[in-house]
């Protein structure tokens, strides 16, 4: 497996002269591009998968594992990863100041997208890319997988302070709920969660006390942005899908879901693919739906698991 990757890398590295960024300018890179850049010292690949053991049983050769539930969040308080921890994670993985960071993962790149959003919040946005289609496409194309854990020399990366340009807080969302029209609120959960028919998808342990959605929010489920093969739809298709729901990029957008990870996917699509001004509300429904005294739109009237 390694030998195949090695040969592939050597052959393709010979054809690479202009460096990593030149081949793909957008925020999405194809599986083939990643396969071509496995030996490129300026490209570092990370897997962010939800299911344990997925990375270890075979990952993109040379990719480093990120465990989102401890490494991309604060493990004690509810918050995104601290600057110190993220700095340590990236430099240990060998990320230099000019390294292009490629993220991919299982479950349609949900947590890889969360990673892209966290890195954006720390000012690394322009060199963070998402492997379009994630693991699903990589596996479907039969590209090589490796089980070894890579080790790298310490990288020279320096990440900045957390900026709030891409992060919305409860107060920002409350403004829209109370009628402020300067930004558009987009709920990307399923229609049944949006309407209040259910509190959360089957199996979710983190719940809200109230069902429904933030008043004035539009609903476009995250999955509308994805093709059957797992890749993200074309820009024209995306523009139409979101414009039909009233999100056309003319106003800043705030996206949310249940815990902020599926909404990272839509954040990525709107902000990085379409170039809109978008904030992700990572508190999402598990914060808003538990907050006391905030207005709620509950179309089905579900209260306390009943009616």
């Amino acid at each position: 497996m390694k030998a195949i990757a090695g040969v592939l890398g050597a052959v393709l590295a010979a054809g690479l002269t202009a460096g990593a960024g030149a081949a793909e300018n957008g925020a999405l890179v194809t599986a083939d591009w990643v396969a071509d850049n496995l030996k490129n010292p300026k490209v570092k690949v990370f897997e962010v998968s939800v299911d344990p053991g997925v990375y270890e049983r075979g990952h993109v050769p040379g990719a480093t594992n990120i465990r989102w539930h401890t490494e991309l969040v604060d493990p004690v308080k509810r918050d995104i990863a601290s600057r110190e921890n993220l700095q340590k994670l990236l430099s240990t993985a060998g990320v230099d100041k000019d390294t292009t960071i490629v993220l991919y993962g299982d479950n349609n790149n949900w947590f890889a997208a969360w990673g892209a959003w966290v890195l954006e919040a720390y000012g690394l946005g322009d060199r963070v890319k998402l492997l379009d289609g994630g693991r699903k496409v990589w596996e479907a194309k039969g590209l090589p997988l490796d089980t070894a854990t890579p080790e790298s020399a310490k990288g020279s990366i320096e990440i900045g302070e957390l900026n709030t340009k891409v992060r919305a807080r409860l107060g920002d969302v409350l403004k829209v709920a109370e009628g402020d029209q300067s930004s558009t609120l987009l709920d990307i959960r399923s229609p049944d969660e949006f309407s209040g028919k259910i509190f959360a998808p089957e199996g979710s342990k983190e719940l809200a006390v109230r069902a429904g959605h933030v008043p004035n929010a539009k609903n476009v489920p995250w999955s509308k942005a994805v093709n059957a093969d797992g890749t993200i739809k074309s820009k024209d298709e995306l523009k139409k899908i979101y414009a039909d729901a009233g999100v056309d990029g003319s106003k800043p957008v705030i996206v949310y879901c249940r815990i902020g990870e599926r909404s990272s996917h839509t954040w990525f699509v709107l902000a990085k693919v379409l170039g809109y001004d978008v904030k992700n509300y990572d508190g999402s429904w598990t914060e808003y739906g538990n907050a006391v005294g905030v207005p709620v739109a509950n179309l089905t009237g579900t209260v306390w698991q009943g009616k």
Partner: protein
Amino acid sequence: MLSPLRRFGSWPVLVALATLALLAAAAHAFGQTPGAVGARQSFALLSGAAFGLVLQRGRFCFLCNLRDLTRAGDPRGVLAILVALAIGAVGYAAVFGAWVPNPFGGRLPPTAHVGPVSPALAVAAFAFGVGMALSGSCLSAHLYRLGEGSPTSPFALVGAVAGFVIGFQTWNPIYLATVAEAPVVWLPSVFGYPLWLALTLGLLALLAALALARARAGAADPRAPLTLRSAARAVLVERWPFLPTGLLVGAIGTLAYLRVAPLGVTAELGSAARTAAGAAGLLPSTLFGLDGLRGCATVVKETLLSENGLFVLGLVAASFTAALVSGRFAPARPTRGQVLRGLAGGALMGWGAMTALGCTVGVLLSGIQAGALSGWVFLVFVTLGALAHDAAAARLPTRAAA
């Protein structure tokens, strides 16, 4: 008994060949699904078949191997288990070296069966030991004996499902009292890989020496000249010797961990019990902490057959095939005693496997191979449970031996 070659063409062999062909066709069909899912499913089915084949041909059964030693002074079965543990530990160490280069980093190897070490584990393993002695087999052996047409095994498996449901009912208080804060001890994180492996192999060698010291001289093994017929008999009819049996179980355990998951036979059974109990309203609305613990996970079923379900299906089918060919497929009408012992022993094993998060395969075999202290604790208490049952049964001369 007819020679296997002469019996070629008789109905058991034809049924066996048809079963094998079905297994192969199913494995091929799963492999056609694009992506890694189909490949994993295919591997799960085939590794289950390989495991079932080795269990049946090597008579790799934790209880009968123990009884062979304690009752007949025959150490071969116990040696097969010890060899499987040793080879599996070496294999796991090789995998760990690639996946978790630094064992001191505070992380457990992904999906390895490293469970919490609590009094509940000891009690559950003891109950499991009593249950397997009462019903005549541990759960993995009941599965392969299902393929031999055993009259007890179906009842033991039904009893195990009931035992699982009882286990779910008692889980929350047990979890809060003993499991929640129990230490999860992964021995390589204490000793490092080289010392852990040396200690494991040393301890297994010591146990092997003890088993051999108890051995009573049996009939000498006359070596027949190797002909096509004697070779076929050795592979297809006679019980496999301990060394290849242990080596194969250890190798299958390592490969299964590398590709899909550690060996375990109760996840699918437990999931079925959990789903059925949930539908019948017999499940506590929350099972505290259960889904965050390592071992044979009992998740509410979302698919008809999980990877573990395919593994178990492959196990039973291959054991059935091997039993047919070796002339060990002998279905019989169950007696009342077999039904009762199967149900009662199965229930004890189900409760034990639910509470201990696995059985002799999931906790003992896959745990010790992975360097889990929980595996060793299970080994000690399951043995004590089985011996306690046998000692008690010996005092009741009226009851037929199980």
